[in-house]
């Protein structure tokens, strides 16, 4: 591999991490409250509300069922509006975030569903308000599971970030596509793929480890 390609791969690693990092953070900022909302408004839960649960659930399902590649294209005008451009690393963060929000929301909902109803009943019997129960009982109890789900989500975002290369995003995905696929440079393709696999593994295993450490 030429000096030039190696430099490009180094930049690619950095860009991929950058996209994954920011998209994950933004996806959690929006997805965590949506997940909590989905959980709390569900039938039999502390803030049970059928209409709210139905509408939010519907939006989440629709965004989740769109293939990410289609979402990327559909979101180009929105991305341009937010970042001023539709290509490059920063621009990729927008569709990545939008694509990850519903996944994060469902993952959070699933983690919260694991919390024993007995804990919630005990909290209610102590005179805690619904908001207090969510913050001080449900979220702490679900923390190990939320962290485990977090690792899965970050790894998913990382995988998606590679796809952003198709429409002009940066990162390892773009390199794999341009050099590996269009120019048929096999070794570039394999190097980037190997790097992506390693990154996903590090994220997933690291997440598992942290989740296990926090589980008391």
């Amino acid at each position: 591999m030429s000096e030039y390609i190696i430099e490009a791969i180094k930049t690619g690693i950095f860009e991929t991490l950058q996209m994954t990092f920011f998209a994950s953070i933004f996806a959690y900022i929006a997805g965590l409250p949506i997940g909590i909302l989905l959980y709390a408004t569900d039938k039999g839960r502390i803030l049970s509300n059928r209409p709210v649960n139905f509408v939010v659930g519907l939006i989440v399902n629709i965004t989740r069922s769109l293939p990410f590649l289609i979402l990327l294209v559909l979101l180009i005008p929105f991305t341009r509006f937010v970042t001023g451009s539709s290509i490059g690393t920063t621009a990729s963060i927008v569709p990545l975030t939008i694509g990850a929000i519903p996944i994060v929301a469902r993952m959070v909902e699933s983690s919260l569903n694991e919390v024993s109803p007995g804990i919630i009943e005990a909290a209610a019997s102590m005179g805690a308000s619904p908001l207090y129960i969510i913050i001080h009982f449900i979220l702490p109890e679900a923390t190990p599971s939320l962290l485990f789900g977090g690792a899965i989500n970050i790894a998913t975002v990382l995988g998606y970030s590679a796809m952003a290369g198709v429409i002009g995003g940066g990162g390892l995905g773009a390199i794999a596509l341009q050099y590996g696929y269009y120019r048929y440079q096999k070794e570039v393709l394999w190097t980037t793929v190997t790097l992506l696999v390693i990154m996903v593994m590090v994220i997933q295993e690291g997440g598992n480890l942290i989740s296990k450490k926090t589980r008391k």
Partner: protein
Amino acid sequence: MAEIFRLENVTKVYKNDKIEFTALKNINLSITEGEVFGIIGMSGAGKSTLVRTLNRLEEVSEGSVSFYGRNLSELPPSEIRKVRRQIAMIFQSFNLLSQRSVISNVMQPLKIAGIPRSDRKKKALEMLKVVGLEDKKHQFPSRLSGGQKQRVAIARALASDPKVLLCDEATSALDPKITGEILELLKEINETRNLTIVIITHEMSVVEKICDRVAIIDEGNLAEVGEVKEIFRNPKSESARKLVFPSNPFDPSSSDSRLIRVAFDGLSAGRPFIADLVEKTGKKVNILCANTKSVGGVGYGQMVMELPKDKEDQEIVIDFFKSSGLSVQEVERT
């Protein structure tokens, strides 16, 4: 003593996909300050629903539940939360926060009540001392045994200085020895802190051990309510008999013979009744089951016996026991 809870015509109907299920039917009850009140029934009888109407974790469909004269159904959410701080609860599955240390668990109700941190800690340590677990304060619940977990739950329940403690099958997940220890702890707390305790259970032994009064719930109905001693001596309802009568007597010698149950209390336990019976009347009975137990601190005993074949002899035997001041009930053959 002041009345702490009053239930009037409490009915609870669950509606699920158009199918109605009546969990409680017209329950009338009154629970007095300072007593240990038992609610006993088979699983599915509605006792868990009943105890949850006391802190409005369950809404009643009809009737009213009053706590110190205030109808709980009429209170707004913020008020009911304040009332719940005075009504602590412990559970069969303990329901401790697994991700929080023992002391942090005990501090929860104080945090909810908005008590400053330093005071919370002091109070929590004091409560852990009451249940004998100060040395476990930094442990996490997963490291504790079932009995220890329930002790932590009791410490947590006591932390907010409640007026009453509701125990929902609190000893059902524990072995007999640990059950005994927990019940002793509860009795001690009842006596030293004058805390009213309401105990839900399906085990008569729990009621016999610490309850002053008991309500028997059968398929959503209040079958019988009264002093535990009185119900043990003379159970009136079918469900009370089922709970009180020994469940495993010997088979009688004949399938159509008449069986009776004789109950005696601490005062009469010293007398050799059977020997007296034979000596005075010359009639013999076949003892199928006999046991003694402590009910509310007094030794009680009961015997199930098969009467002689002759009708007149049977009356002589029954009269003898009755005139000796014992309570006699027929035992129906099943």
